[in-house]
């Protein structure tokens, strides 16, 4: 692998609140650039495939796609280690992939199969990978932020020199529990990094209709913050590195990632009633996070257009294969209905809908 150092300038300067912003020059390597391209393209392809599976009724319920926001997942992952923890909301497929999860686990979970990362019991919104410090996958808007601060609490308690990134949306940014958790984190100097993925809409509500102040990086008041171009993976990487250092030394910090979701909020939302098609295509043309990396790859002569096309073909096949395999995977055993309710069930009885017909002794 080619690890020749490359320095890349972020597209935009950082805007800082109560801190000095990091440099715009980001250290990278040819390998990293190519990796960024590949992983982001994989994420994109995966989400598009999930869309099709949903339309084919193979995925049920809610399904929130991440396409458009890939640079956040990628840049964050590039700045940290697997000892650093991540927690997010329901838009969690790509974060899970970034933490080392496999396509097979993802598609199996989405289709409710045994091999799913939550054995089919969680569904789209509830992915986890504890071994690489990914704590989910949460369905209640805002709840993951105090939870993330709690993980940071444990890291500090255990003197682990690691930090936690708690991701939330611009809609979630108004949730009171976020302010409560921030105050406690600041009082206790927890290594918590609050990452506001500002994709400018919470479901169908534009940020300015939900937030009196949409300067999310400043909403911590007494907590420092940084506004970051969330469509630029290198800006994200730089900001996350900076934030990690800050969090370890001084406690919590907020990163506002200016980003965009191409899809509707979830599958029932066409995503086009509260914003114009022009707005969406404008972002695609001017700010697409993959295109940006692609241009860098080409301008640094790290690959040809052809090679990138081939890579994309490969990715497509990888995704198709994973889907095919997942489709073959069986649904969970009926007995799984009663597992994992508790770690220790003490052998007490649990019941199905007709308790005289279906009963289980909890392990």
């Amino acid at each position, binding site marked *: 692998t080619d690890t020749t150092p490359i320095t890349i300038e972020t597209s935009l300067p950082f805007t800082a609140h109560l801190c000095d912003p990091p440099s715009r020059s980001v250290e990278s390597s040819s390998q990293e650039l190519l990796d960024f391209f590949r992983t982001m393209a994989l994420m994109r392809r995966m989400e598009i495939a999930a869309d099709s599976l949903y339309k084919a009724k193979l995925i049920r319920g809610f399904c929130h796609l991440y396409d458009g926001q890939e640079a956040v997942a990628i840049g964050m992952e590039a700045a940290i280690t697997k000892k650093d923890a991540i927690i997010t909301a329901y838009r969690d497929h790509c974060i899970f992939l970034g933490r080392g999860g496999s396509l097979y686990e993802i598609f199996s979970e989405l289709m*409710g199969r045994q091999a799913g990362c939550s054995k089919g019991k969680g569904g789209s919104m509830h992915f986890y990978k504890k071994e690489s410090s990914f704590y989910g996958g949460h369905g209640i808007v805002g709840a993951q932020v105090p939870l993330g601060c709690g993980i940071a609490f444990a890291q500090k308690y255990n003197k682990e020199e690691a930090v936690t990134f708690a991701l939330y949306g611009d809609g979630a940014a108004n949730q009171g529990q976020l302010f409560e958790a921030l105050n406690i984190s600041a009082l206790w100097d927890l290594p918590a990094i609050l990452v506001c993925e500002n994709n400018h809409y919470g479901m169908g509500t534009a940020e300015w209709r939900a937030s009196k102040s949409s300067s999310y990086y400043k909403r911590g008041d007494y907590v420092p913050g940084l506004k970051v171009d969330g469509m630029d993976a290198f800006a994200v990487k730089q900001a996350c590195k900076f934030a990690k250092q800050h969090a370890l030394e001084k406690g919590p910090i907020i990163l506002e990632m200016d980003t965009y979701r191409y899809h509707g909020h979830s599958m029932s939302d066409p995503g086009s009633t509260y914003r114009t098609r022009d707005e969406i295509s404008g972002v695609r043309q001017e700010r697409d996070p993959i295109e940006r990396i692609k241009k860098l790859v080409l301008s640094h002569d790290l690959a040809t257009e052809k090679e990138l096309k081939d890579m994309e073909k490969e990715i497509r096949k990888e995704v198709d294969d994973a889907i095919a395999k997942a489709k073959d995977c069986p649904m969970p055993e009926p007995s799984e209905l009663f597992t994992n309710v508790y770690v220790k069930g003490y052998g007490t009885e649990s*019941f*199905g809908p007709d308790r*005289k017909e279906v009963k289980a002794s909890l392990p």
Partner: protein
Amino acid sequence: KEMTVRDALNSAIDEEMSADPKVFVMGEEVGQYQGAYKITKGLLEKYGPERVYDTPITEAGFTGIGVGAAYAGLKPVVEFMTFNFSMQAIDHIINSAAKSNYMSAGQINVPIVFRGPNGAAAGVGAQHSQCYAAWYASVPGLKVLTPYSAEDARGLLKAAIRDPDPVVFLENELLYGESFPISEEALDSSFCLPIGKAKIEREGKDVTIVTFSKMVGFALKAAEKLAEEGISAEVINLRSIRPLDRATINASVRKTSRLVTVEEGFPQHGVCAEICASVVEESFSYLDAPVERIAGADVPMPYAANLERLALPQIEDIVRASKRACYRSK
């Protein structure tokens, strides 16, 4: 004539808004987006932003504001996108709304409606599938309504909005799109159903099936199957969990001597348990068989389709339990 539950709810709110300028609507995505499940469709356009409020995703805050507005005499209709999110605001529902009239000895009444889909939808997993009927109905000061049909939806929601006390109005997402026959009377803008009265959906003499919301449909289907086997089931649609119509339930059981209770929520301390207790208290000597209970499985809601099905009551569960109550095997 037919009407969907969605249209029934929508028209009920519309008519009450038009009848009383103190009625207004608030919640996430209720205005410009027309409601996450389109229950509030068209209201923003018709009544304007001074009557229809899109809120930020801050349930505690907007619920508290709604309750405060009700203290001051307005009649808010507060939508929770689903009742799962009402947990963020439950302190206001219980401590600020339910108890105020009592604590103030009648000075501060709270004419507010909290509404939205409750219980299991399809494939939405453990955090989005809980039924809150028993929790809310345990609290004196609240009224808790659970419509099944379009007529229920219209008549109960209109009654709830007109009521001077706080009402928790539990809808079911999977019923929104269902069509029901609807009478001329029920279409009239003066139509209201009485709060606290159950409805006998089907008369029968061998066994009483008591349930509410979506499970009423299942119970009716079960009753048909039972009829084929010569068992005549009476199906009671509770409509109101608080006040609970103990009189109607007990009268039916005194007639049939057998009781099957059905709910989708968790079983322990649930609606079924209370109905059983009520019948044991009031009609013990009439009971010819143990009371049967069909409820959601005692586990968080799994996502996988096969497990989800196992976690929820099915028509055959109701049929089986009814036969057991009648001492018929198979």
